[in-house]
């Protein structure tokens, strides 16, 4: 699926989609593992970063990822009420909702930050969520290409 576009999409991206998935190691990482074990298929445009808990994800880190040119960030955590760290995922959820709101305020699609709680612990669920997310990102433009180019110039990279 990587690099191929359906005929309905007229958008040509300057570069392929790059997405980051933060998967909490208690629920979502299990879903990722099961998806692999069942040999389900996904585009290779995402990179998984396992975390102890979604609550440990700094909002500033997410913003920095977008600034670095990452197209989308997905945070996959446990069910609300099922967090191993005493409802820490509720805290994460509100904080990450704020990040979505900030993206929306400046006109970036808030859907670039996917938040999923407890619906990715089975292989097929993980695959369905991620596939849908990556598909969405394919249809969005690259984040801030001009500024990125400027930055490259100013560093002489």
């Amino acid at each position, binding site marked *: 699926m990587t690099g191929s576009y359906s005929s309905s999409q007229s958008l040509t991206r300057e570069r392929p989609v790059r997405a980051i998935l933060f998967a909490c190691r208690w629920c979502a990482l299990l879903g990722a593992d099961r998806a692999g074990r069942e040999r389900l298929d996904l585009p290779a445009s995402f990179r998984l970063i396992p975390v102890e808990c979604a609550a440990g994800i700094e*909002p*500033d880190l997410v*913003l*920095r990822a*977008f*600034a670095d040119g990452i197209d989308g960030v997905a945070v996959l955590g446990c069910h609300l009420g099922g*967090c191993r760290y*005493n*409802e*820490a*995922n*509720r*805290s994460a*959820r*509100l*904080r990450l*909702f*704020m*990040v979505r*709101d*900030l*993206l*929306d*305020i*400046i*006109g*970036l699609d808030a859907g670039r930050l996917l938040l999923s709680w407890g619906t990715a612990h089975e292989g097929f669920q993980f695959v369905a969520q991620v596939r849908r997310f990556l598909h969405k990102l394919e249809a969005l433009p690259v*984040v*801030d290409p*001009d*500024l990125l180019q*400027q*930055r490259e110039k*100013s*560093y002489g990279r």
Partner: protein
Amino acid sequence: MVAEHRELIAQLLSEPGVHGILGLCLEKGVVGPHLFTNPADADRLVLEPKWPLAKTAFFLARSLQDGESIGLVCRGCDIRALIELEKAGQIRPGAVHFIGLECSAEQAAACLCETPYPPGVEPPEAVTVKPASVPLVLALTDKPGRLQLWRDHFQRCIKCYGCRNACPLCVCPSCKLEDDGYVTRGGVPPDPLAFHLIRAMHLADRCVGCGACQESCPAEVPLLALHLAARSALRNRTGYVSGTTEISPLLTAGREDKPRWEETW
């Protein structure tokens, strides 16, 4: 009204433990902040223009000894900012006594302010402004195509840190905006998603809308629209309003330890 305030500060200055009163002073035709310590100087106090004094008050309060306090003749937003700083353990409770002033309609409009009066005061009619109804703000926060508008604004940013320095709530000893890992060193303009949105995120539950950031920006970046929009996004989600003694929902989410229903007896 100014006469009453001059009498008031003269009176307060004679009370024990009052190190001084911070307010605006008219001296040789120029207005500026001044720490009044001598009751005889009280007749130099003026109440206009709207001048953000919270950060100055914070620095003064931090240097006080135990038992000392300062007075502050200021606007509602200054008071709210200092309440937020007290919540964050940055100033001692009782270190600052507030003498609050209301803002005029023009001043409220300039700050897009919904609460241009000290907390606890009955809101006067027809002074408040709904930022969401201001066309400039709407264009920046609601209309399609706003990404390009923001890009154009952020392109002018020269990373002077004026906004951060002027903001009464930005007092962290180690600021992420100066950390190369978050905001690339040497990059001008800075990555807006990093610099401005990180600051907006940190202030989402604390910004009191004083407008000091926008006033200090040499490039006229519409920062007030950004921070007020972030603030109202949080308010829409949780009902939380900054500048009160209520603890931020960003800290309390998931920490409500009560069982899900009340005891009936």
